[in-house]
């Protein structure tokens, strides 16, 4: 499919690199903790968080279930406001359309505000190939662009860069030595990017939400670069994932309540802009021409699939990254593609529709469910990760040794007698390696485990071996349930059945 980022490394290799990067790990921990705490404070302050979540989820479910309708309404209304709307089934098509617009405009330079969708297209490289300068204007994106890297967090793309590194990158760009002081570095970026905004031919943005009823596209930003990009250049191109739709302005209130709070703990980002078409005839600023490119790129494959349709509800807040204990240790680049963290572990194999190459990203999770708990629209990401693993197995992309191991599992666990026999065999077998109830050897099949912790030994007598004696001892005073216990059990069973019938 779309990606040109073929990983030449496995997720294990990439994790290994991240785990050995002390600064990265500390920076990611610090930032995600901060965002997580802010989110908690903001949701507590708001109150009724669960009711809000449920409402946001319902709006997203409803919209996706009627996506063709709302999308066509949006297109109709955006066109009425003067927008050129384009449709791209693949990333290549979106790139092609972009190139044609750039050609039509004779563009020499493009300024971009943060857009994860545009990362799917690798549009910057493609533009540079035809001699169009593409500048990222979000401070974090600008940093990683100068470093020649990709974002490692949806919200804080340069989470992995320290001040010294930023100073070096900016100094090179400035042609003079800049000290590693945030105000000076930010001041340099402001001045430098100001020039770029004013000279750019095209402004490119993503789209946080698109409103069907009004044909507006909505952008959230704190720095103001999304406003610059959509105000200053003569032409605007907006990339929009086809699922970014919400029905109405009323629904935007709910999304605006959830997105900033979940992302950074803000009540609202500094700027929320609803842009409806190019500038009106009597207006003196804003783009004269506006293009919206609606991108599928694997999204429609999630539709109609009961296990994955809900992933399209995502509002790209990054809360699942901040909650994820795996992301906390390995950061974003470990995931290998555009999106990272739990949402990335689902989107990467699903949007690319490639289990062979990308299925393994789903293993970067202990399935703890923190992502689901953090998600403002309640996407069951932890369940989806299991479904992806199953898909990988079904398509035959798991190693033969693993398949054998689970054949063994099946054989043993299909009968309690076999299970018992194998446990007994194990008890005999472990005698040479177990000491004081623990196995410490770093070789053999337990290697992955014992490299980081001891393994326990099998007990001398299993529970099932002891049950007869234990049971006889426990129920020595008769074989009956205590009367008050019986009453409570009956009561609990009644409640359970009532609940079941509701």
């Amino acid at each position, binding site marked *: 499919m779309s990606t040109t980022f073929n990983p030449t490394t496995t997720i294990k290799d990439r994790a290994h690199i991240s785990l050995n990067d002390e600064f990265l790990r500390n920076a990611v921990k610090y930032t995600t903790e901060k965002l997580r705490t802010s989110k908690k404070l903001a949701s507590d302050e708001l109150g009724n968080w669960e009711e809000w979540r449920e409402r946001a989820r319902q709006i997203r479910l409803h919209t996706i279930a009627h996506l063709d309708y709302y999308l066509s309404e949006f297109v109709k209304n955006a066109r009425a406001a003067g927008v050129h709307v384009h449709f791209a089934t693949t990333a290549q098509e979106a790139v092609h359309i972009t190139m044609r617009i750039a050609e039509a405009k004779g563009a020499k330079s493009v300024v971009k505000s943060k857009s994860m969708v545009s990362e799917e297209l690798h549009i910057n490289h493609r533009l540079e190939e035809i001699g169009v300068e593409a500048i990222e204007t979000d401070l974090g994106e600008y940093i990683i662009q100068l470093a020649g890297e990709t974002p490692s967090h949806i919200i804080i793309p340069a989470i992995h860069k320290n001040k010294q590194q930023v100073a070096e990158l900016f100094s090179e760009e400035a042609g003079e030595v800049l000290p590693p002081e945030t105000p000076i570095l930010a001041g340099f970026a402001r001045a430098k990017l100001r020039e770029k905004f004013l000279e750019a031919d095209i402004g490119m943005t993503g789209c946080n939400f698109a409103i069907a009823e009004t044909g507006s596209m909505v952008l959230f930003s704190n720095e103001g670069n999304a406003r610059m990009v959509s105000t200053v250049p003569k032409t605007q191109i907006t990339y929009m994932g086809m699922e970014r739709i919400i029905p109405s302005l009323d629904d935007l209130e709910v999304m605006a309540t959830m997105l900033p709070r979940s992302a950074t703990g803000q009540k609202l980002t500094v700027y929320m802009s609803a842009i409806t078409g190019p500038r009106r005839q009597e207006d003196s600023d804003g783009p004269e021409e506006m293009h919206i490119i609606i991108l599928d790129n694997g999204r429609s494959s999630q539709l109609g699939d009961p296990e994955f349709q809900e992933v399209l509800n995502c509002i790209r807040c990054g809360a699942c990254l901040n909650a994820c204990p795996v992301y906390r240790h390995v950061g974003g680049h470990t995931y290998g593609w555009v999106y990272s963290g739990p949402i990335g572990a689902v989107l990467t194999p699903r949007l690319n529709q490639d289990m062979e190459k990308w299925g393994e990203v789903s293993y970067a999770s202990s399935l703890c469910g923190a992502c689901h708990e953090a998600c403002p629209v309640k996407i069951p990401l932890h369940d989806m990760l299991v479904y992806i693993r199953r898909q990988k197995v079904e398509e035959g992309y798991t190693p033969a040794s693993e398949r054998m191991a689970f054949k063994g599992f099946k054989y043993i666990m*299909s009968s*309690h007698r076999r299970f018992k026999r194998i446990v007994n065999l194990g008890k005999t077998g472990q005698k040479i390696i177990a000491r004081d109830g623990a196995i410490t050897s770093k070789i053999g099949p337990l290697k992955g485990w014992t490299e*980081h912790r001891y393994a326990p030994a099998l007990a001398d007598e299993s529970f099932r071996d002891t049950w007869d004696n234990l049971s006889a001892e426990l129920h020595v005073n008769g074989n009956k349930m205590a009367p008050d216990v019986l009453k409570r059990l009956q009561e609990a069973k009644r409640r359970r059945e009532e609940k079941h019938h509701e």
Partner: protein
Amino acid sequence: MKVSIFITCLSDAIYPQVGEAMSRILACQGVKLHFPEVQTCCGQPAFNSGYWDEARTSARTLLEAFDDSDFIVSPSGSCTGMIHHYYPSLFKDDPVMLTKAREFSGKIYEFSQFLVNVLGVTDIGAHFPHKVTYHPSCHGTRLLGIKEEPRQLLANVKGIEFVELPFAEDCCGFGGTFAVKMSEISGAMVEEKVQHVIETEAEVLVGMDMGCLMNIGGRLRYEGKQVRVMHLAELLHEGVKQKV
């Protein structure tokens, strides 16, 4: 009214003392217990790795074992969560088994959940004069919504000095096959979890899942740390014994 124990393969083979402690506590409360021996494993290791066919084979032993039970109690939030949350999807293509799976998923309880929410017991009269910290396992809290039950039981233990575990709700890095498959990431996670346990200066780490406790305990021993790792049932049972 039939109450049965689902011991879980891990407690059965490695931590039988947990099953014993749980059984003794429940029997003390007047519950008559059964142990249907055809049970093996809930199938979670295979299920989570994507091997659903293999998982189903093992899950069927449980459906058979507990078919005629009214309540099933297990010392693991994770295995209980597997049954409660995933059995209906695991058998979604088999209408007969699906009905059984749905029924089963409604009548299985994790130990503290059963004690507090079904029996209505929050104080079993235990006495445990030690400094204790608690790791709430992910599946118990998130798949089953067990948040207050273990804390209530611990709060009523006499003499206990309870100390909160920093970042308690963060996964310990066990995740079943994750610990082996992504061993380096899992290793980093359990290393941090152990640091947090050590920071509390607790003598005892208590939890409700032997998978997590095997992981954290294994790391504590690997680092030569003396913290005792106990299942909630073990702690309560020892607390009752000590009192006597």
